[in-house]
């Protein structure tokens, strides 16, 4: 099998670290690690800024003489790994980088094995350029709430949110609307996600509903709109990278959060530090990152990536390759039922006749999963897996099963989830759509029995 790395020669992104440091080392310090140095000595880490990030990139090793380290110096341990740098300095591990500008990266299935996804394995999906890491001051960050259907526009600091509203921690699954796009034919435009644009972490924040109600929701309110601090790829300050939202009813659900924390830590920069929305079960693009403003709209939000073909699918099924006029498209709401096999890892070996543990996660957009079935004979027969209840609504459910391969040979383990309304994952790629959204085909992993 051809490896992705053979397709993608060493990209700009992996050379980026060296170029950034070559052009302006102190700026690179700030951008990459959030590092600031003493203005006079140009050494050290001002109030510790960036030290943790740089240590993290070095595998957690302490920089013993950190106070002596000159500004603009790329750590030699990273400099030596010129070809392999990728997203390690950003607190990410093992992700497949689909694109480096803007940064988009997905997680291989076996790295999503944890019940609660660690930040380092959380996929990265950007439409624009995130605000420079070194320029973000969480203590000075503000969130504005306004819009046509807001009675009393207000501005909150993160400290205000923590003080004025009850905090909640919930396990919430987020999946990119385009996860699985790579399988559509004719190919659909966009990043060619396979299975890894999905995560379920424990998010901490306040309920979006509490904040919106505190600002007053007028009777004519229809939709929310978010605005983030990310900038448009062209660099044009007049353009918005992305500004989406959800219907008021979704925004007011108990699980819709304005979050500042994940898994007990601050949010990874690439996932929206210091503040983001979480509207789980809907396309990830509704969960705005680097959150600066929320409007309560008196109409369906018409911001960037709300119209045209973006995050929209045909109202009625179409044949593959059909040109669909914009007025025949509708906004994606809940994501469909889906599952992911996180063990075994695809392509591995296992002795014939001995039991093999199969496990993974299942989710169903706004709904829950009622069953997961496993097949080792290409879908001819299916066997029920054990399935947990979700930790809370909109959390991943976990499945486990044991399979035995009767004799030596190549097998595929397939998983098929069914939601609480009786809808199951298809075994083939579902309805083609112009932008390749909503592919919830059964996940399958290959195993060689010896």
């Amino acid at each position, binding site marked *: 099998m051809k490896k992705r790395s053979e397709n993608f020669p*060493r990209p700009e992104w992996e050379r980026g670290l060296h170029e950034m440091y070559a052009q302006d080392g102190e700026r690179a310090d700030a951008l990459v690690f959030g590092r600031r140095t003493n203005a006079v000595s140009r050494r050290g880490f001002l109030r510790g800024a960036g030290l943790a990030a740089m240590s993290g990139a070095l595998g957690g090793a302490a920089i013993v003489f950190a106070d002596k380290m000159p500004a603009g110096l790329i750590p030699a341990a990273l400099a030596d790994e010129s070809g392999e740098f990728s997203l390690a300095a950003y607190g990410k591990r093992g992700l497949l980088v689909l694109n480096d500008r*803007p940064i988009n990266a997905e997680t291989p299935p076996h790295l999503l094995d944890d019940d609660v996804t660690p930040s380092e394995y959380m996929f990265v999906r950007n439409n624009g350029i995130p605000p420079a890491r070194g320029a973000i001051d969480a203590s000075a960050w503000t969130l504005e709430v306004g819009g046509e259907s807001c009675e009393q526009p207000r501005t909150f600091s993160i400290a205000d949110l923590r003080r004025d509203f009850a905090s909640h921690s919930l396990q919430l699954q987020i999946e990119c609307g385009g996860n699985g796009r790579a399988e559509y034919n004719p190919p659909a435009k966009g990043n060619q996600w396979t299975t890894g644009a999905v995560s379920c972490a424990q998010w901490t924040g306040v309920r979006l509903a509490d904040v919106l109600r505190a600002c007053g929701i007028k009777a004519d309110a229809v939709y929310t709109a978010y605005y983030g601090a990310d900038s448009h790829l062209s660099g044009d300050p007049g353009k918005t990278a992305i500004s989406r939202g959800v219907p008021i009813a979704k925004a007011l659900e108990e699980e819709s959060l304005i979050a500042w924390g994940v898994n007990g830590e601050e949010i990874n920069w690439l996932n929206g530090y210091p503040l983001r929305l979480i509207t789980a079960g809907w396309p990830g693009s509704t969960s705005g990152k680097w959150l600066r403003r929320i409007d309560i709209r008196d109409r369906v939000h018409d911001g960037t990536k709300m119209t045209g073909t973006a995050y929209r699918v045909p109202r009625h099924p179409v044949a593959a390759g059909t040109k669909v006029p914009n007025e025949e498209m509708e906004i994606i709401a809940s994501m469909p039922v889906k599952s992911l096999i996180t063990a075994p890892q695809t392509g591995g070996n296992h002795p014939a006749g001995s039991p093999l543990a199969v496990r993974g996660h299942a989710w169903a957009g706004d709904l829950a999963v009622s069953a997961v079935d496993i097949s080792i004979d290409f879908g001819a027969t299916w066997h029920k897996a054990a399935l947990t209840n979700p930790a809370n609504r909109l959390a991943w459910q976990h499945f486990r099963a044991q399979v035995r391969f009767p004799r030596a040979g190549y097998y595929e383990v397939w998983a098929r989830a069914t939601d609480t309304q009786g809808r199951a994952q298809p075994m083939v790629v579902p309805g083609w759509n112009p932008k390749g959204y909503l592919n919830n085909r059964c996940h399958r992993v290959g195993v060689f029995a010896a």
Partner: protein
Amino acid sequence: MRRRFFGRTAPVVPAMAVAVVVAVTVVVELAFAADATTTSEYDSTTGLVIAPGYKVVTAHCIACHSARIIIQQGMDRDHWRETVEWMQEEQGLWPIPEPMLTQILDYLATHYGPARPHFSPSQP
């Protein structure tokens, strides 16, 4: 840098039947060997396949985004043209004069067309 591509057969254009009036039917099968079965050469900076037009693409197409979004795509010429027009109308791309526009579209449709000779996702 020279690289080989493994595990992919030549994309085959659906058999095109040509009826000849002189009582004989000739079936012509067109198979594009393209780059898929031969050795392709890739630009080590961008990852773009080195072929006529790649320098023009490099000059016009990677100011805002990287080439990695290009090399993931598989679109026909019309779709590529629409994409360029969309970027010009909405995304801040500058006007591209001829003959460069034609060179860009020819390059993209040939090497990053629906047959995707230079792309395969990582799944089984």
